[in-house]
C-alpha cells in the first residue's frame, strides 16, 4: 500500500513535470533547446507509463513504456534534429506573439483546463484521475505552440507534443488504451512524422524556407 501511495505521488510529480515541460517548450528561444525539452517530455512520458504499469495489472504497458522511450524520447527527436541540421534551419524560434503574452495565455489555459476537468475528476474513482486536468492543459499548451510559432519545424514539435499529451492522458487517466488502438495510433504518428519529413524536403526545395507565412505568401504569388 505504501508503495502504491509512493507511485501515485510519483505519477503526480510526473504530471507536474509534463506541465512544466510544456511551459518550457513555449518559453524556449532556441530551436535545439526546444528539441531537448521535447525529448525530455518523451522520457517523462515513458517513466509515467512505467509507473502506471507498476500499479496496474496491464502487462502491455511495459511494452508501451519501452516503445514510448524509443519512439518519443529518442527516434522522433533525432529525426527532427537531423532535419534541422541538414537543412540549416535558422536556429532561432520565431514566435508570432511575444513571450510574456504567450505565457499569460498559457496560464489562462491551465486555469481553463482545471475548471473544465474539475467535474470529471470529482466523479472519477481511478487512482490517476487527478492527472486529467494537467493532461488537458498540456494538450492546450501544445496547441498554443502550434499557433504561435512561425516555423514549420516548431509547429511539428507542437503537434507531436500534443500527441505526447494525449498519450499522457490515456496513461494517466485510463491506464492506457487497449493495445490495438495504441499500436494504431503509434503507427499513424509514425506515418505522420514521415510525411513531415517529406514535406520539409519539399518545402525546402520549392520555397527555400520553412517559414509558414513566407510559404503561404509565396504559394499565393505563384
Amino acid at each position: 500500500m505504501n508503495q502504491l501511495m509512493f507511485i501515485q505521488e510519483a505519477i503526480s510529480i510526473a504530471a507536474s513535470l509534463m506541465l512544466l515541460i510544456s511551459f518550457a517548450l513555449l518559453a524556449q528561444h532556441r530551436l535545439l533547446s526546444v528539441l531537448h525539452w521535447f525529448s525530455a517530455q518523451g522520457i517523462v512520458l515513458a517513466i509515467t507509463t512505467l509507473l502506471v504499469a507498476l500499479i496496474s495489472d496491464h502487462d502491455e504497458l511495459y511494452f508501451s513504456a519501452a516503445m514510448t522511450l524509443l519512439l518519443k524520447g529518442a527516434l522522433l527527436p533525432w529525426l527532427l534534429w537531423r532535419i534541422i541540421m541538414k537543412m540549416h534551419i535558422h536556429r532561432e524560434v520565431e514566435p508570432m506573439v511575444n513571450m510574456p503574452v504567450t505565457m499569460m495565455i498559457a496560464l489562462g489555459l491551465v486555469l481553463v483546463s482545471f475548471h473544465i476537468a474539475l467535474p470529471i475528476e470529482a466523479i472519477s474513482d481511478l487512482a490517476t484521475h487527478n492527472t486529467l486536468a494537467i493532461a488537458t492543459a498540456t494538450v492546450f499548451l501544445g496547441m498554443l505552440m502550434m499557433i504561435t510559432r512561425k516555423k514549420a519545424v516548431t509547429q511539428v514539435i507542437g503537434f507531436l507534443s500534443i500527441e505526447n499529451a494525449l498519450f499522457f492522458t490515456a496513461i494517466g487517466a485510463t491506464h492506457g488504451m487497449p493495445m490495438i488502438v495504441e499500436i494504431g495510433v503509434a503507427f499513424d504518428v509514425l506515418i505522420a512524422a514521415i510525411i513531415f519529413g517529406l514535406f520539409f524536403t519539399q518545402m525546402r526545395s520549392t520555397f527555400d524556407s520553412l517559414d509558414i507565412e513566407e510559404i503561404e505568401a509565396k504559394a499565393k504569388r505563384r
Partner: protein
Amino acid sequence: MISPMTAPISEQLPINWFSFTLLSPLIGGLLLAFTRQAEKAFSINVIFSAATFLGSIGLALDVLQVGAHEALNGFFFVDAYNVFLVSLTSFVALTTAIYSGPYMRFEWRERGLPNHRLRLYHAMYQLFIFGMLLGFTTNNIGLMWIALELATLATVLLVSLYRTPASIAAAWKYFMLAGMGIALALFGTILIFFTSSTIFGHSNAALTWTMLYAHASELQPTVMIMAFAFLMIGYGTKIGLVPMHTWLPDAHGEGPTPVSAVLSGLLLNLALYDLVRFKMLVDLSTGSDTAGHVMIFFGTLSLLVAALSLHKQHDIKRMFSFSSIEHMGLMTIAFGIGTPLACYAGLLHMTVHSLVKSGIFFTVGHAAQAMGSQQMDRIRGLIRHHPGIGWGLLIGTAAIAGFPPFGVFTSEFLLFSATLDSYPWLIAPLLTGLLIAFAGLFRFVQPMVYGEVAEHAITVKANMVPIYVHFTLALWLGLSIPAFLSGWYKQAAALIAGG
C-alpha cells in the same frame, strides 16, 4: 477481447463480405504501388474498385437478408446506418476510378505528371478507400479514429501530388489543421474510454461501439458531454464545419480533381458519420439535447459563412468546396435536430450530396482541363465548347442548389418540415443561407457555361458516363426512393434519433 454480443452470423454465410470488401482496396493499393505501367494501373484501379463495390453489394445483401450484424470478433459490424454508406462509398469510389482513368491520363500525358507520382496516386487512392471502408465498418471507436486518420494521411499525399508550391502549401495546411482536429478527436475518444472503462474494465469492449450503445445510459454524462465537445471540434474539423473548415477549400482546390470528388463526396461523410455515432451515445448518456444544439449551431454557422464565401471565390474547385461546407452544415443541422424525419433528411442529403457533388467535380475537372485553368474568369462558353460538360455543370449546379426533381430538393424539403416541427426560428437562417449560396453558385456558373467559347479552349476527351450515372441516380432519388433504401434510412433515422 470477447464481446458478449458477438454473434458471427457472417461466418455462416458463403463469403465473408467484410474481409472481401476491406481487403480488396488494401491489396489493390499494394499492387498499384508496384505497378510501373501507367495504362495498366488505370485498369487495375478500376478493377479493384469494382471488386470493392461488389463486396459492398454483398454486404448490403447480407444486411437485407439477416439484418444488422457483427463480424470478425465484433471488430466490425453493419447496421442500417453504415451499410448504405459503405455501398455509397464504394460506388463513388468506383465511378471516380472510372473517371480518373481519362482524367489522369490527360494529366500524365499532357501535363507531364511523372510516372512515380501516378503510382503514388493510385496506391494512395486505394489506401484512402480502405481507410474509408474501415472507418465505416469498424465497431471500435479507436479504430474509427485510426481509419479516419489513415484516410486523411492518404489524401494529404494526394493533395500534394502535383508538388506545386500552392499544392504543397495546401497539403501542409490540410495536414496541420487536420492534425490538430484529429488530436482533439482522439482526446474525446480517450475521455469516452475514461468513463466506459469503469463499466467494461480495461478492454476493447470499452471501445466497442455496440457495447457502448447498449450501455450508453450508464456512461457518465459529465464526461460524455465533455468528450463530445472535443469530438465535435475534432471531427468537425474533418467535416469541414466553420470555423474549422479552412483547410478544405485549399485541399479541394489544389489536388487532382478525382481527389476533390472523393474528398467532398466521401471523406466528409465519414467524419460526419463518426460524429453522429458519438452523438447517439452522448444523447443516450446525457438525456439532453445539448449535443444537438451544438451541432445545430455549427451547422448553421457553416451554412451561412460558406454561402457568403461562395461569392468571393475565383477558383472553381474552391467555390464548389465551399458549397460542400454549406451542405455539410445542412446535414449537421439535420442530425442536430435529431428527430427521425430530420435524420432521414440528413441521411438522404448525405447520399445525394455525395452523388451530385462528386458528379460536379467530375465535370469541373474536365472543364478546367478544357480551358487550361481553374480560374473561373478563364472558363467561358462550356456549352458551346463541349455540350456534355457544359450541361453537366449546369444541371449539376441546379441539382446541388436544390431544384427538383433532384434528390437534394427532397432532402431539403424534408429538412424544412423537420425544422419547422422542432425549431421554427431556424427556418430563417436556413432560407437565407440557401438563397445566398444559390446566388453565389449561379452567378459564377452561368458565365462559365453560357456565352461564346474562350479562345484558349482545347478539346478534351471527357468520360461523361460517371457524370450521367451520378446525376441519374440523384434524379431517381428525387422522384422516388427505392423501398429498401428508404427502409435503411428509416431504421437508421430511428437509431440516430434514439427511437
